[in-house]
């Protein structure tokens, strides 16, 4: 990765003016992770919107105001992924685009289709809908910590942050909770394993098992309806037509991909930071009533679990002072725009009580992360439980393993820690998951908030 803006003349004369800000940007290299602060400061300072020659050439937006304007210009920026070339052949939100193309749910659609799906699923994911799940989340968190509490050792990724978001996501979808381990490994490992790793065969096999279960669940819920996001999809009519199964599977995969590894990443990175800053950790625990919300937003800003999204320019336009041509690709960097000193004083510091924190970690505009309310709730419940039951935990830097690259998710593979052992409270994970399944079924917890209000209560 070059850390100097490239100033060579463009061979296409027409474009020299338009593409005068150039930067060799490759977010999929380990170098980008290591030099993230440096690269970000340079782009924000010199070229908040730049042309990069990587991956067939694409724009990169790093500045906060530029990303803000671009992300909210749905009339000129398309999310569409059209692998069969039925419309304009656009490539969706991944740069580079995957070789085997399928649409990644409504995040790779434009309105009005995208809006139909959002309206269908919002009543399962709104703040009021998500609040109903808090008691279940607390139980799964408690039980996960029980499994390690007497030993004085935990891996916050494997033993907590991988488990809770996965169990909750399955519950909301309407999939049996005990199936969580079919889904965790392929989703987690697919994000951090490089395409040429010897581990790919094993991960591919686990991905197939996941896909089989997903298809079986869709068929089962269609035959014997039970409430949840999948039920909504199974009954969906979009623009008067019933969507084909592969489209629905793309949406289920999107909800899982969004629900699992992102919150895992946020939790691991935040717990690691809190271990490195014990005074701040004590302060957060003592002042949680006033500090937990702002601290959560600050961790979201600073760690930006999903670092950005790609788009395709859908009509010639000028946005944020930059001229774009139809068909060009652009990367909107939530992660870099979250470090813009114009909006965030001391952008490279974590300030738990930061105000005016207009971060972009859930995206902006019509594609705002549909699971943002889930992410915040699960993150807060996990962190508070750790602060209560393992207040003196220390992460082991030698065992902490970050993803090698931060192109897709800024996450961690492992985060081992030690702490003063404590007593178990109540039952373990397996028994708790079985009990929670009964609760989900009896209370019809996964029904939309329009049908069922109020938090979960065990009889």
């Amino acid at each position: 990765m070059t850390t100097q803006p490239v100033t060579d003349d463009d061979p296409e004369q027409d474009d020299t003016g338009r593409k005068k800000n150039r930067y060799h940007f490759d977010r999929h290299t380990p170098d980008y992770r290591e030099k993230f602060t440096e690269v970000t400061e340079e782009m924000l300072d010199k070229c908040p919107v730049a042309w990069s020659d990587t991956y067939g050439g694409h724009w990169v937006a790093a500045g906060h105001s530029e990303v803000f304007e671009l992300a909210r210009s749905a009339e000129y920026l398309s999310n569409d992924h059209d692998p069969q070339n039925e419309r304009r052949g656009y490539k969706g939100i991944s740069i580079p685009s995957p070789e085997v193309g399928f649409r990644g749910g409504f995040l790779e659609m434009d309105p009005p289709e995208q809006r139909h799906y959002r309206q269908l699923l919002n009543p399962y994911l709104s703040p009021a809908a998500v609040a109903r799940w808090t008691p279940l989340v607390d139980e799964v968190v408690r039980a996960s910590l029980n499994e390690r509490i007497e030993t004085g050792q935990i891996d916050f990724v494997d033993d907590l942050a991988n488990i809770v978001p996965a169990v909750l996501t399955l519950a909301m979808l309407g999939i049996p909770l005990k199936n969580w381990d079919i889904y965790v490994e392929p989703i987690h490992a697919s994000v951090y394993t490089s395409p040429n790793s010897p581990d790919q065969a094993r991960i591919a096999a686990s991905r197939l098992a996941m896909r089989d279960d997903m298809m079986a669940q869709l068929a089962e819920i269609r035959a014997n309806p039970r409430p949840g996001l999948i039920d909504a999809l199974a009954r969906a009519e979009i623009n008067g037509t019933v969507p084909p199964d592969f489209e629905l599977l793309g949406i289920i995969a999107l909800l899982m991909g969004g629900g699992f590894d992102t919150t895992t990443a946020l939790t691991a990175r935040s717990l690691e930071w809190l271990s490195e800053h014990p005074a701040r950790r004590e302060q957060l625990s003592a002042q949680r009533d006033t500090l937990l919300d702002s601290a959560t937003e600050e961790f979201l800003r600073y760690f930006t679990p999903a670092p950005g999204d790609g788009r395709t320019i859908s009509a010639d336009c000028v946005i944020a002072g930059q001229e774009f041509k139809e068909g060009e690709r652009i990367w909107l960097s939530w992660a870099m725009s979250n470090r813009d000193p114009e909006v965030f004083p001391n952008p490279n510091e974590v300030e738990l009580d930061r105000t005016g924190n207009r971060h972009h970690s859930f995206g902006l505009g019509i594609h705002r992360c549909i699971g943002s309310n889930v992410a915040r709730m699960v993150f807060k419940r996990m962190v508070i439980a750790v602060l209560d039951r393992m207040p003196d935990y220390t992460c082991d830097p030698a065992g902490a393993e970050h993803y090698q690259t931060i192109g897709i998710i800024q996450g961690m593979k492992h985060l081992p820690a030690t702490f003063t052992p404590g007593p178990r409270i109540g039952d373990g994970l397996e028994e708790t998951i079985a009990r929670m399944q009964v609760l989900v079924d009896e209370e019809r917890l996964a029904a939309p908030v329009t049908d069922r209000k109020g938090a979960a209560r065990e009889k």
Partner: protein
Amino acid sequence: MKVRVDPDRCQGHTICSMIAPTLFTLDDEDGHSTAIDGEVPAELESKAAEAIRSCPEQAISVIP
């Protein structure tokens, strides 16, 4: 002081109601925000200003 949430700009980030839950109500179905009708109580004016400053979509404004 009165405040307003522009329904065309609000995307349901919910930051405003985290900062000032008595000034902003979130829709049960999609979490989009609506501001209270009347005057913002004097003791909550700084919270209202903080909500305006913190909205990721810049959807909140003071009604003159």
